[in-house]
């Protein structure tokens, strides 16, 4: 029995639904759900050569989620984690009304979902659509059920039992110094890559688009206005400020259309490089300004837009019931020679779709704010597992939006610029070379329908998703007249998420850096020493800005080069999180159930290490960074310029970028290997030890909250 053994309390213990049989009604209900899901999967698997409705994807996914939530998450809760509702959670014990306070589970679900869901589940599935919709769907659904949601739930539970400790701290406490330090550095490095790649998505979506640039730029004054409103004019009125903000935002999107056709259009038509500098400058300012001015209001705006748009998209998909035009499994799934990302289905599909199936970054949220707010232990199931299922559903919808596009258009938008050229004719020709068709006319028409100058090589996922969403939305609300509005709505909404992540990430990165550097030079560690703040903000911004800049100027296409790096980084973080979970399960005498996290851990280690290995050692210059470097370096020695590079400067850029990327991947793998080896040593020690090794779980305190809905007296002697 783990340390969570329930002592004899006089409290009425809630009846254990445990071994009791299911009622006939519930048997009937779950049989129907299973049947529906099975039929939908059957349709997806058997439909060949004919176009099927996206509704089947939705039904298959929702059916699977329902069954997984009802049965698997309950199994994990009851057998593996054994939450105990008579035990006071940190929210109750340490209640301070600020960081710790028991929060209604529905509210906390909203909080947690808003913190984990962002642009990630929207971008990855769009890129992965190059292999067809079926492999992506299978991975999103199976991945979330057996890996992603399990990780989120278990990390949340462990952190909750440790007063809301962060993943890094848990790694240090449960695994050891070396593992803890490696985990900390890995988290920081991975965050930098993540911010760089996400910002690159924004740059690619806004380049040469005055409409998009205007509406996204307007989010800054809108946020400032909201900040002043909530802080000065009507303090604390968040809801009304957010509603005003959303209204202004919709106005800004509509206004973009007017800007585009006015003399101001040139001011907002920016090249990728200019946008990079704007974003870097913005990131720095946002990190230095007081939170209430920019960051907090943006966060509210983004949360409202997130929940609203996702709900709208779900309604749109069900009502419009679009037909999936992409192949179920494309030829690139087997050849691995796709233009969007290179490499075979295993492992590269599984790192391209990270968020939505398994995202290591969630472990940081699950071990951050959420565990400090949980009212009752058993709620980790709904909040940890449930919120991740919701995010997975967002990923499914993004995949649907991409798969409803004509494949010709999809490739014209997502292949690298070097391959497609800049004219409709060259792009049409290049797409034909890939084995798909789109006429130059169709391409021009598609761009005109959403009032963009061009849709060629608008990689990064956001524009593709926006076109897909505009198709779906205009089919339900407003018809073709509103197509351009919906396109820019979708762009704005993604950019808003990403900029919120960039703001928050830069700030978190700054604190981590200050913390680390504070060990070397004391004043740097002080969170209110201005020069320290500026220096560390500058360093963090410069770090992700570097990747952003190289991505925006990379002749081989930044997304195509950097997205695998991002995916590997994110999944490696998941490997660290699952390692911590598995170690704790084994240490606390739950070896029998350790497979619950050990199986996804094995899988994610296999995926990331194979992908990393190929990225480092593959002979194929399209896949291996060092093979690519050698190819271009040799050409430079021979005085040649290899397309898509246009001159020797481009050639040198490719050489530098592939070297940096290759070294980074090697570094990541090394750090994670240190964590895993360190953990393995601890696990062996735990298995050999006759009694469970000590863990850092906080001791049992009896809960005073009898029913989840009525929080009354605070605990005497616990908390402030």
């Amino acid at each position, binding site marked *: 029995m783990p340390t969570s053994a329930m002592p004899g309390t006089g409290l009425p213990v809630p009846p254990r639904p445990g071994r009791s049989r299911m009622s006939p009604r519930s048997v009937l209900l779950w049989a129907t759900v299973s049947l529906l899901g099975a039929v939908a999967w059957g349709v997806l698997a058997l439909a060949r050569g004919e176009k099927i409705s996206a509704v089947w994807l939705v039904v298959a996914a929702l059916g699977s989620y329902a069954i997984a939530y009802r049965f698997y998450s309950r199994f994990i809760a009851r057998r593996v984690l054994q939450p105990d509702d008579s035990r006071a959670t940190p929210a109750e014990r340490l209640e301070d*009304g600020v960081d710790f306070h028991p929060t209604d589970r529905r*509210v906390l679900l*909203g909080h947690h979902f808003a913190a984990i869901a962002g642009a990630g589940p929207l971008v990855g599935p769009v890129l992965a659509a190059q292999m067809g919709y079926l492999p992506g769907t299978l991975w999103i659904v199976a991945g979330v059920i057996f890996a992603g949601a399990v990780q989120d739930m278990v990390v949340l539970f462990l952190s909750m039992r440790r007063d809301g400790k962060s993943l890094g701290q848990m790694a240090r406490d449960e695994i050891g110094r070396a593992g803890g330090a490696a985990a900390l550095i890995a988290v920081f490095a991975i965050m930098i890559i993540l911010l760089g790649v996400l910002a690159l998505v924004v740059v690619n979506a806004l380049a040469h688009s005055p409409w998009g640039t205007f509406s996204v730029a307007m989010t800054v004054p809108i946020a400032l206005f909201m900040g002043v409103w909530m802080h000065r004019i009507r303090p*604390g*009125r968040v809801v009304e400020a957010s509603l005003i903000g959303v209204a202004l935002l919709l106005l800004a999107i509509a206004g973009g259309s007017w800007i585009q056709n006015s003399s101001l259009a040139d001011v907002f038509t920016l090249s990728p490089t200019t946008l990079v500098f704007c974003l870097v400058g913005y990131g720095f300012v946002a990190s230095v300004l007081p939170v209430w001015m920019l960051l907090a209001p943006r966060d509210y705006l983004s*949360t409202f837009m997130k929940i609203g748009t996702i709900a709208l998209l779900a309604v749109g998909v069900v009502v419009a019931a679009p037909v999936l035009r992409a192949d179920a499994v494309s030829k690139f799934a087997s050849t691995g020679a796709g233009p969007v990302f290179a490499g075979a289905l295993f492992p590269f599909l599984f790192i391209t779709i990270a968020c939505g199936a398994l995202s290591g970054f969630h472990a940081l949220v699950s071990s951050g704010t959420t565990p400090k707010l949980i009212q009752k232990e058993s709620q980790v199931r709904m909040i940890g597992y449930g919120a991740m299922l919701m995010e997975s559903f967002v990923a499914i919808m993004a995949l649907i939006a991409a798969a409803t596009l004509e494949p010709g258009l999809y490739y014209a938008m997502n292949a690298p610029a070097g391959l497609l050229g800049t004219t409709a004719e060259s792009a049409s020709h290049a797409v034909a070379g890939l084995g798909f068709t789109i006429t130059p006319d169709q391409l021009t028409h598609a761009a005109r329908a959403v009032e963009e100058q061009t849709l060629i090589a608008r990689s990064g996922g956001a524009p593709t998703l926006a076109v897909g969403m505009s198709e779906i939305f205009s089919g339900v609300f407003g018809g073709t007249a509103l197509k351009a509005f919906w396109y820019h709505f979708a762009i704005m909404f993604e950019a808003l998420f990403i900029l919120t992540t960039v703001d928050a990430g830069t700030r978190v990165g700054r604190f981590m850096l200050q913390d680390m550097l504070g060990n070397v030079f004391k004043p740097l560690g002080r*969170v209110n020493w201005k020069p320290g703040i500026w220096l560390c903000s500058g360093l963090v911004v410069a770090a992700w800005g570097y990747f952003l800049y190289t991505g925006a100027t990379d002749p081989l296409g930044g997304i195509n080069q950097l997205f695998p790096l991002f995916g590997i980084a994110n999944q490696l973080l998941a490997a660290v999180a699952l390692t911590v979970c598995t170690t704790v399960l084994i240490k606390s005498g739950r070896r029998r159930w350790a497979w619950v996290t050990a199986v996804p851990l094995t899988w994610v280690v296999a995926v990331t290490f194979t992908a990393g290995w190929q990225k480092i050692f593959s002979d194929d210059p399209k896949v291996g960074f060092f093979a690519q470097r050698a190819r271009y370096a040799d050409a430079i020695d021979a005085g040649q310029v290899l397309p898509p590079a246009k001159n020797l400067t481009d050639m040198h850029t490719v050489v530098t970028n592939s070297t940096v990327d290759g070294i980074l991947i090697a570094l990541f793998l090394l750090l994670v290997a240190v964590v895993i080896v360190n953990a393995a040593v601890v696990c062996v020690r735990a298995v050999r030890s006759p009694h469970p090794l000590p863990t850092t779980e906080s001791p049992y305190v009896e809960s005073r909250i009898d029913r989840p809905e009525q929080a009354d007296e605070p605990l005497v002697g616990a908390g402030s």
Partner: protein
Amino acid sequence: MITRGWARSVRWYLRELTGEAEYDRYCERHRHHHPLAPVPTRREYQVLRALHREEHPHSRCC
């Protein structure tokens, strides 16, 4: 009547989700623990809250 019930639930949820309701909770707590001290105004609370957020950044995922 049903719509009013709905509107109330939505308002409750939004106020809780955005943290607007935090102030009420804070005041209640304050009165309980320090019955003699004056309760901070909404404006003062907002400043306290902003200061706190300044030093406790939240991660946002991708």
